């Protein structure tokens, strides 16, 4: 599966990773190589096989509806690059 520059640009945007224009072509090449190698899975017939739901062979554990957490604003904000008045701050979003 060959990826072109534009596809890589779109994917990079979906992943919110800035890739400089001059890097797009080589990156497309690398990703195409990887995807091409992955392509070998297509030769395997998997009709009727269930996708693996989980490696862990158990039911989803459920917790009781009790408040056991939160109320730790300092810890939550401690590592924030920009915080103010108890909020996280980010560049303004225009909706």
């Amino acid at each position, binding site marked *: 599966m060959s990826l072109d520059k534009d596809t890589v640009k779109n994917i990079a945007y979906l992943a*919110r990773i800035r890739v400089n224009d001059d890097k797009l072509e080589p990156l497309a090449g690398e990703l195409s190589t*990887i995807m091409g190698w992955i392509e070998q899975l297509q030769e395997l017939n998997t009709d009727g096989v269930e996708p693996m739901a989980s490696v862990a062979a*158990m039911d989803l554990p459920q917790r009781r509806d009790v408040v056991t957490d939160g109320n730790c604003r300092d810890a939550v904000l401690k590592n924030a*690059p920009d915080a103010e008045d108890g909020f996280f701050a980010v560049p303004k979003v225009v909706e």
Partner: protein
Amino acid sequence: MADLTTFTLAEARDGLAKKDFSATELAEAYIKAVQAGRDLNAYITETPEVALERARESDDRRAKGSATGAMDGLPIAMKDLFCTEGVLTTAASHILDGFVPPYESTVSANLRSAGAVMLGKTNLDEFAMGSANITSYYGPVKNPWKAKSGANVGKDLAPGGSSGGSAAAVAAGLAMAATGTDTGGSIRQPASFCGITGLKPTYGRCSRWGVVAFASSLDQAGPMTKTVRDAAIMLGAMAGHDPKDSTSAPIAVPNFEAALTGDIRGLNVGIPKEYSMDGMDPEIQALWNKGQEWLKASGAKIKEISLPHTKYALATYYIVAPAEASANLARYDGVRYGLRVPGDSLDDMYMNTRGEGFGEEVQRRILIGTYVLSSGYYDAYYIKAQRVRSLIANDFKTAFKDVDVILTPTAPSAAFPLGEKQEDPVAMYLNDVFTVPTSLAGLPGISVPAGLSKDGLPLGLQLIGRAFDEETLLRVAAVMESAAAFPFHHGAED
């Protein structure tokens, strides 16, 4: 006094009990070694004060007669993927610059409760993505082993990855043992490259809470140690059900050390024919054969088995793992912790932060992961891979009807030079060919150092066990370790 850094966990445990030395003396010895061994770049953060404090606490406990932790007073290193409260945690990435967790991972907390003494946070491939420890923001780790002959003499060699720092530290005597994590081979393969023991437990045996996530359905914490007995001791202290992790198995932790009876008579050892790959290094094949002989000599039965979908395991892994990683790494966005590179808008800030904060390999994998999940490709890649994964898991299930453990090589080669294999991303992925299937099936796997290559570099053999049967796995591993009599040492010279 003997060089305190030559002891195994078991030996040091005895020594402490007999009061031959104190935990503080042990810690001091290792702290010195760590400082002297900085050239290997095995550590990202050294924590000598923490180590001395915990050693002191252990000595105090011992004085009162209450030093009952399985790891009491024993100095270990912690892969810098485990969140440690109050101590910088980086995942070897620029994007976690300055991140000091206000919480402790369950596994590291368990070790601390067991009395372990933390020497520092070891280096790794960024976000655990790699098999050579060359993608770290903090620079590559050097394998303490050097080639004695051949083309790579005089070159610095890779320790394997992603837990390269932990492997190098244990091998070089900069830690008595270390934690690692294994997603596709990241404990076992560096253990093989560095001549130590590395155990990836069954998926769910150790909690993932507080471990920086790479691929959620594959990540497992495990011990990296000098001996199989040490791995048993350490796993016992790490493992246990954690209600904070929904994939943590509600299963009791057995006494793993007690399983090391030395008796494997009547056990069936499977040799998967598909692991004999075209162009396989004859040295590795020869060592594999030797492994079979050792086990046969100890009373086990050798059986050829088939794991028919083996050859598809790597491609499956390189769809599933990046897919999960692409979502797991979406939280690194400069908003709440770590690096923030400013931008004119929120989107700009995201793009700049992640573009600068993530290294190339991580970016590649996130992009692959995003691609295979994207609309139009999800069925063809992700669902397809999950189906193949079922087939692979089934292969093992079928095989384990006839055998109790499976024996394979750990890695397709000995340690290679730093800087090699870097042009072709796929070439690096092939390092995991023997370890990945086990991860996909969630089974336990252990690498035991089994011999030296003709150039004097360590080669490991891997044993794979049934789910939650680490006991049998460890038992067979210990027998193999005995038979192999690998000349364990740290540092390059004998």
